[in-house]
């Protein structure tokens, strides 16, 4: 109210109505309410413009990803098809030696599941935790369909002695509830032992943690490389006269606009053992024809191609910040006796940090989730976590595992994105 009283128009309204704390509009409504109404109307209008797109993105993007992530902790392949033994697991503590009730429940469930032809699903679910056990379920399923007589323990062990394996029972216990954290444990190379304690998996099966580290380490390296290559270019473009820099800018923007697959293909062509670069090196006599370098289908290939592809994402933000740096600061530093190196280090470089931060975070975020380039040029040592997710989606069909890995990757990316938004602001993103 105090602010409204300072407004000259409000003052007129005050004299007209005669009541100093109840300002009204011309048609007699209280001014505060009229203002609030018009503001909420404006807010509603603005929101209505955004609403269709927001709904579209929520339905086609946010909800699907949420649904997919649900699979990372929810898998009822075992529990839905094996209800009796699942109930037995729920009643007994971890590590209980299976008793008669357990064997009876198992035999009944196996029979029912084999009849319903869902035994494959059950076996697949256990197979995720204990490799090789799918065939145990399917072969036993075939046998129990021909009939099974009590005592069930002996009958099942007769069919396959693997049924007595404590690891199998531990895996079944893990799968007996639809909601499970086991896929996340597996995604960080952990598992539960027979007593239900969390332990590391055997040394030769620890792949995911290594892969996460490799993804982050390679992304960091690529970010550093784009910085080393991008900084001089951005500086040159920012200090050249407009006409020349616009011309050179095309050399940065053309790769940016060129298809990702085209750029990846060119690197495959260039880096092959019978490719252009090796040919030139042999022709120059730097290497012999027999010692052609293996620069592709390994980490080197991934690093070179991704650095090239992501370089414009570093140059563009750096350039837009460097353009705004006033050159007289550096000149002032020089006139006060600083060497050119000191002037650069103490005066120029600190002013480029906002652009550097924006570019580095963008490159890192994009690199962490890269899939196509590593898949094509990475060989086996240049694969990233995205490629593992794709493998679980299309080859092993372990969708829950893919979802758990995706959830961890997404968590990391969103954390970085949040940081980017706080430090740079998403509305400051510029393209070309």
């Amino acid at each position, binding site marked *: 109210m105090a602010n409204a009283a300072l407004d000259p128009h409000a003052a007129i309204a005050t004299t007209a109505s005669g009541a100093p704390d109840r300002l009204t509009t011309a048609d007699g409504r209280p001014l505060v309410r009229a203002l609030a109404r018009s503001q909420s109307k404006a807010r509603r209008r603005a929101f209505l*413009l955004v609403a269709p797109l927001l709904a579209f993105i929520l339905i086609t993007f946010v909800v699907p990803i949420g649904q997919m992530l649900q699979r990372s902790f929810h898998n009822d392949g075992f529990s839905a098809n094996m209800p009796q033994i699942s109930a037995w697991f729920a009643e007994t503590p971890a590590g209980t030696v299976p008793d008669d009730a357990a064997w009876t429940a198992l035999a009944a469930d196996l029979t029912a599941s084999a009849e319903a032809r869902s035994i494959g699903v059950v076996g697949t679910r256990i197979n995720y935790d204990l490799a090789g056990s799918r065939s145990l379920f399917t072969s036993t399923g075939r046998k129990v369909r021909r009939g099974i007589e009590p005592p069930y323990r002996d009958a099942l062990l007769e069919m396959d002695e693997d049924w007595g394996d404590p690891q199998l029972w531990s895996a079944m216990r893990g799968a007996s509830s639809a909601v499970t954290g086991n896929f996340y444990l597996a995604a960080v190379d952990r598992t539960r032992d027979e007593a239900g304690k969390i332990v590391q998996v055997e040394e030769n099966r620890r792949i995911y943690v290594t892969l996460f580290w490799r993804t982050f380490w390679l992304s960091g390296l690529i970010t550093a490389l784009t910085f080393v290559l991008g900084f001089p270019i951005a500086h040159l473009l920012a200090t050249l006269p407009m006409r020349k820099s616009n011309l050179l800018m095309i050399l940065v923007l053309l790769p940016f606009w060129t298809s990702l697959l*085209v750029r990846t293909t060119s690197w495959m062509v260039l880096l092959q053992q019978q490719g252009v670069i090796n040919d030139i090196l042999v022709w120059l006599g730097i290497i012999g024809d027999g010692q052609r370098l293996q620069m592709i289908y390994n980490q080197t290939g991934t690093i070179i191609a991704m650095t090239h592809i992501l370089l414009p994402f570093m140059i563009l933000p750096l350039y837009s910040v460097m353009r705004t740096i006033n050159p007289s600061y550096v000149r002032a530093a020089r006139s006060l006796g600083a060497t050119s190196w000191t002037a650069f280090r103490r005066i120029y470089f600190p002013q480029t940090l906002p652009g550097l931060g924006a570019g580095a975070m963008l490159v890192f975020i994009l690199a962490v989730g890269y899939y196509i380039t590593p898949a094509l040029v990475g060989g086996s040592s240049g694969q990233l976590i995205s490629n593992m997710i794709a493998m679980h989606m299309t080859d092993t069909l372990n969708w829950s595992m893919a979802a758990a890995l995706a959830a961890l990757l997404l968590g990391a990316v969103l954390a970085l994105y949040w940081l980017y938004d706080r430090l740079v602001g998403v509305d400051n993103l510029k393209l070309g």
Partner: protein
Amino acid sequence: MAVPTYATPLERIWHYAYIAICAAIFFFLIAPIVVIIPLSFNAEPYFTFTDKMLEFDPEGYSMRWYDSLLTFGMTAPDGPRDLSWWGDAWANAKWVQAAKNSIIIGVFSTILATVLGTLAALGLSRPEMPFRRAIMAILISPMIVPLIITATGMFFFYSNPCELLTLFGLDPQCGRLAGTYLGVIFAHATLGIPFVIITVTATLVGFDQSLNRAAASLGASPRRTFFRVTMPLILPGVISGALFAFVTSFDEVVAVLFIAGPDQQTIPRQMWNGIREQISPAILAVATLLVVFSIALLTTVELLRRRSERIRGVTPH
């Protein structure tokens, strides 16, 4: 970038070294794209320059890989090149089909992304927009979230889009979106939207809201104000956003691999298959055509940007 007169000899050396370094980096940026162009005219099925090519012998060059783009998949590729031959190419050639699909999907997803994205950008650039920052972050996120995660999520959702409704106790029956053009168009529109939002909001930063008020005070309806005042001013931004969205769709392969059916073979998918199975110089011919295409797009966008800056009176950069 001239060397100042007071520069020490060391600084002079460094200056020329710096220019050389920059030239090398520019070479690194552009050479891989340029080198495939002559290689696509190779007469031999190799990925390197043959001796004949280096001697500029016309026999070292040929159009055979471009020709194979047309003939691959045709029922009668060897016949005389009359009208029926071209009809066959138009109807059956694999790369022609892929190009048609890419254009159809690209155009429709661009229209969807541009219309929704421009409306949203108009709303987002109003000062009274509630939760502006959070909503902006959500709308930009398709660009940030790793493509493989997006594609995986879409794979499950598009296989059974009605599954969502079962949460509300409904049990509707509806078709799949996966394996249909509509599904791919939706997916590509989602991926293109961030680019539209970014370019259009950037154009609206310099937009003078009092122009709208002036139009309204002169009696123009909101619709008339939009089409006669706002739209002409933001059009360059809208078009570059649309071009970005189109390129995104035209170059997208991961979502296509996961949700498209055999009918939605696009150029990137065909390239992906070609690269993974057996890479032939025909891929380089496609790549060259795509490079030419991106040069055309880049030129358009640059011209638009300059025009937009001129109209709005914003000094470049």
